[in-house]
């Protein structure tokens, strides 16, 4: 506004000024509305995150949180050469237990989210069709998701129980297995047990998100295809799938974020099994159980970085349209 020349007619000069005043007013209002949210986020998210990152650079212990000293990157990686000439490396980055947890986390996240997406989409397609009692089925299918994770984990722990569990009983009587399996304790089956429960629990959520996407597709698009006699499978891959893809990608992000920080289900269903220990589980273990508070903080910080990286990568590779601009 400073560069208005003297010869410019009056109305042209004032109009943009008035509009920008209006704009400023809007911005002010927006800030005001955002403030409570920002304060809340700072208190519950930013501050703990910042503290955790700080602790990861100290030797803080749980017994005296205030007394930690700055140790730099030692919790992540420290290389010492002993007088004997032997080199000792320590820290999270060379901890096999940590990398095992990273591997478990990603294995769990990728397998569970993939299966949940496919199943969820299938369920959504069924729920999107018209049939009697659809409302009831839609509500009923949400039940697994509505049950608190701890409850469903306990429930499944009983189903999976090696002596009294229904799963073994059923498989035995069907003749599919000849001896009882300790589903949650056995290293070779623990991950499957966790996956089964998670898929059982979260598929409804995925289905719901997919259903919302499916309902956005206008019905006459299908009618046009029907008149053209396009095969339903071709319609699914060429029409339905491309059109629900944006909704699907967002749903997958939600689930991926959830799956990468899975904790409760594993903590309850398969405690202390190295086959299922994830990043969240192992960092909690260090933070609380083993009194390696700083070490646990370093793991938490890495957990944060890894998840952030994974999601950024996903958004970038999938060109996910979070802002909805493409429509």
């Amino acid at each position, binding site marked *: 506004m400073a560069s208005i020349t003297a010869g410019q007619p009056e109305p042209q000069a004032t109009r943009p000024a008035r509009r920008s005043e209006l704009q400023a007013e809007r911005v002010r209002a927006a800030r005001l509305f955002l403030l409570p949210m920002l304060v809340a986020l700072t208190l519950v998210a930013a501050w703990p995150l910042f503290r955790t990152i700080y602790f990861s650079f100290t030797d803080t212990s749980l017994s005296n949180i205030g007394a930690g000293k700055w140790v730099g990157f030692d919790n992540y990686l420290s290389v010492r050469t002993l007088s004997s000439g032997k080199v000792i490396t320590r820290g999270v980055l060379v901890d096999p237990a940590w990398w095992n947890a990273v591997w478990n986390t990603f294995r769990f996240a990728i397998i569970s989210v993939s299966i949940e997406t496919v199943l969820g989409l299938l369920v959504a397609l069924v729920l999107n069709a018209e049939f009697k009692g659809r409302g009831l089925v839609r509500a009923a299918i949400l039940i697994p998701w509505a049950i608190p994770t701890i409850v469903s984990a306990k429930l499944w722990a009983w189903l999976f129980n090696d002596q009294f569990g229904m799963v073994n009983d059923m498989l035995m009587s069907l003749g599919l297995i000849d001896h009882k399996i300790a589903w949650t304790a056995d290293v070779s089956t623990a991950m499957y047990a966790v996956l089964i429960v998670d898929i059982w629990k979260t598929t409804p959520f995925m289905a719901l998100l997919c259903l919302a996407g499916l309902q956005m597709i*206008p019905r*006459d698009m299908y*009618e046009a*295809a029907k008149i053209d006699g396009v095969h339903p499978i071709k319609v699914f891959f*060429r029409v339905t799938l491309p059109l629900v893809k944006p909704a699907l990608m967002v749903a997958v992000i939600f689930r991926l974020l959830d799956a990468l920080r899975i904790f409760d289900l594993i903590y309850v269903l398969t405690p202390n099994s190295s086959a299922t220990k994830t990043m969240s589980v192992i960092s909690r273990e260090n933070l609380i159980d083993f009194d390696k508070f700083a070490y646990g903080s370093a793991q938490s910080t890495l957990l944060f970085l890894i998840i952030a990286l994974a999601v950024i990568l996903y958004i970038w590779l999938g060109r996910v349209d979070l802002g909805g601009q493409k429509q």
Partner: protein
Amino acid sequence: MAEIQLKDVRKSYGSVDVIKGVDLEIRDGEFMVFVGPSGCGKSTLLRLIAGLEDITSGDLLFDGKRVNDLAPSKRGIAMVFQSYALYPHMKVYDNMAFGMKLAKAGPDEIRRRVEKAAKMLHIDHLLDRLPKQLSGGQRQRVAIGRAIVRDPKVFLFDEPLSNLDAALRVATRLEIAKLHHEMKNVTMIYVTHDQVEAMTLADRICVLRDGLVMQVGTPSELYERPNSLFVAGFIGSPKMNFVNGQIAQGFNAHTIGIRSEHMVVDNADPVWRGKVVHAENLGSDNFLFVDIGSEEPVLVRQEGKTAIPWGAEIGVRPLIENLHRFDETGNPIR
């Protein structure tokens, strides 16, 4: 080649009867227009013919064969939807080619037909665009093109122009009229509630009301010899004047109807006299609203351009040979 017959066709959704027994014959190569007020069942009837809805009872025959249970794709029809129903993620070309079966037509044949249709509709320069990069009128033409490439025997349109602005509507209307001219063997069924579209496009018009056929006939038949008060009022713009009561009784009728162009201003030998309460000059025509003592002022199309001021007392005379008389039930007295 397709002749379509509907025999006592009914459709109900649950306990709601929407189509209440329609008997109709649509001739081969004919342009048939369904008109009627909103909610009268035009779209439903069209969707029954398309096979998008199941017929509750009655028979639908294509060339004498019952097709009630035939899948839409097997009926040799193509449909243009009001909302265009283009696939938003596909280019115009793919939108037009999507419905064509590769087995029947090779890729060269598909390309040839798409390009031919596109040329016909002047959208051949748009084939590489997405639907969202097109204007409303262009989208509508793509939707029509998509129907053309299928080489249908029956062309169904459900209010194809209702999303277009007035100028574009006229242009596309001409386009469709031309299309009908070029595709002589194709039977066309066109749904609209715009009776100007109906009058200009139709070979025959079918007026529907509350799920029943009121009258079927050529535009001039409907215009000149409406067989009910409803059709008389529905067909024609501006609407026919209706006069009840004392004045109508003078003509031995419960209601008389007279179109504005069949009234003349005649101060020398008037039938009715009244004040001009309003006047509308449309440029080509001058319409006078004359209060002759009926419930509503009657509309008179004025010959010539002599300005008649509001409030002036004038005499008008209906042309008796064009006067329509109706009894209490709305049936014509002839």
